[in-house]
């Protein structure tokens, strides 16, 4: 019994392969509960329900709708169908199993109905934004998200989503603003720091390039300072410092001197090499970030 539990924790579940691994454990996890059904206390822990929720998400991604339905039923049996989080999960399930466009529209209708009754139902508010986005109505999604953030400005997840939406619409500076807000809530998250670095790097093609690139290097450096083997951070640092050197921004008004930039680039390349080497050996463990690894290898070959 301990085996699948430990595995569930280890796999991050952010890519399809590990989601599939997770979903394949459905019979084990769901069966475990029915076996110990005569002693409800043993399975009635927060841990168990958190796992059920994870399993529900994984099953939906991999198309195992039946197991997903079972998970959802167990959750709503325990917490009641009017629990906000359960409502959000049910909405997710309906969306995932919707056959065509009109079915999705119907989901949207339902969300609007729910929200007119309880306007601060956060999971449903978020589902509505996600649904608008998948219905290809990004401007509606953005305005919905702004409305949500106006009421709940301390939600880092929503700020990140807003940044992503803005970026997809080509509104770089708004996206940067949103990510900065997310960072103000979670100042030590190295992944958001490096994401902000990426955004700044992308935006640097227009306008105030040297300043934006300088800030991009700073944020990549900060993400490395916070997590000293973060692949994306080193990758970004390599790219950003290379571009600064190529465009001769070094030494321009308040920027880093050329020597420091060269040292930064050499350091980033060195670390990238080390990381790629060590992770290629332990391939299975890093399966979820395989695409990043390939990109890093490709960058190293180019240099």
């Amino acid at each position, binding site marked *: 019994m301990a085996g699948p539990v430990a595995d569930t924790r280890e796999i991050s579940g952010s890519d399809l392969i590990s989601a599939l691994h997770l979903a394949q454990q459905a019979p084990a996890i769901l069966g475990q509960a029915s076996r110990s059904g005569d002693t409800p206390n043993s399975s*009635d822990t*927060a841990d168990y*329900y*958190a796992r059920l929720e994870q399993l529900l998400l994984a099953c939906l991604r991999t198309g195992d709708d039946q197991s997903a339905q079972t998970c959802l039923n167990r959750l709503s049996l325990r*917490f009641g169908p009017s*629990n*906000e*989080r359960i409502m*959000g999960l049910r909405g997710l399930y309906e969306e995932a199993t919707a056959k065509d466009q009109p079915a999705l529209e119907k989901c949207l209708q339902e969300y609007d109905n729910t929200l007119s009754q*309880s*306007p*601060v139902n*956060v*999971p449903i508010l978020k589902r509505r934004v996600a649904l608008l986005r998948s219905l290809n109505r990004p401007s509606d999604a953005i305005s919905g998200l702004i*409305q949500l953030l*106006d*009421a*709940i*400005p*301390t*939600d880092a997840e929503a700020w990140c989503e807003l940044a992503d939406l803005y970026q997809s619409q080509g509104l770089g500076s708004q996206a940067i*603003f949103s990510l*900065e807000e997310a*960072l*103000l*809530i979670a*100042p*030590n998250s190295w992944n958001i720091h490096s994401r902000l670095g990426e955004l700044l790097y992308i935006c640097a093609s227009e306008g105030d390039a040297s300043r934006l690139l300088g*800030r991009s*290097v*700073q*944020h990549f*450096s*900060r993400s*490395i*300072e916070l997590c*000293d083997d973060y692949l994306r951070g080193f990758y970004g640092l390599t790219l950003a410092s290379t571009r600064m050197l190529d465009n001769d921004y070094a030494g321009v008004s308040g920027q*880093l001197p050329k020597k*420091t930039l060269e*040292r*930064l680039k*050499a*350091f980033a390349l*060195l*670390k990238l090499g080390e990381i790629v080497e060590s992770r290629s050996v332990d391939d299975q463990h890093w399966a979820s970030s395989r695409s990043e690894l390939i990109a890093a290898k490709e960058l190293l070959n180019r240099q």
Partner: protein
Amino acid sequence: MAIQGAEQTILRDPALFYWILFPISIVMILTGILRHYATVLMNNAPKSASTLAESRERLALLRGVNLRNNACSVLDRESFEMRKNYMVTGFRNGAFLKDPNNRGQPPANPMTDPAGMEAMMGMLKGNMMMMIPQTLIMSWINAFFSGFVILKLPFPLTIRFKSMLQSGVMTRDLDVQWVSSLSWYFLNLMGLQSVFGFILGSDNAANQMAQQMGMANPAAMVNPLQPGQDPDKLYLNEAENLEVMEHFCILDGVEERILQNFAPAGI
């Protein structure tokens, strides 16, 4: 006067032990457990905001605090000034208030405000849960067991402990080692916490689930405003805090720092 150094001996019926010491201890433990479950039952989750404006009124303050605490690790001077100006103007104008028109008026009486009433009711219920069983058991012990000396501590104590260990027994000369029934009740009342922790699992076992499901909803998670508190005052306070803030940025020189701390010497 008790003879110093000489051992006092009192002939006690051994039945005192079984009929007073044990019952008091067991009753205390059982009421403790009962009280725990009663609290869990009657404890309802803090009410989450019912409208978007209300939620904004609560969380805008947190946003200001976040900006003040974390700006140094994220923002450069320009974007910090921009945000600071926005927050300060918002706080000063009352733009984040639930209804800006009521600004400056004295806060509603918490007795008439239903939300405040509910919070006070919750506090009252918690207090009642402590008070009622205590009064009952105390009077029960007073009625049945007052005046019994039930226990002799195996170690000597100074005279200061007399009032703690011998309440209800008005003998001046009795050695401090003897414990009266009423004092045994008090000792139980204060000292059983660790026993409850052992039995009920560190006191949180029953509440954990409610917390976990509440986590998904950041609007319900925190309410920095106490009932009856005027958000406008807090806002003005926060605006002042933001105004006087010195800006610095730990991103300045971060490149040198990582080269120094993480890079090998040769680079």
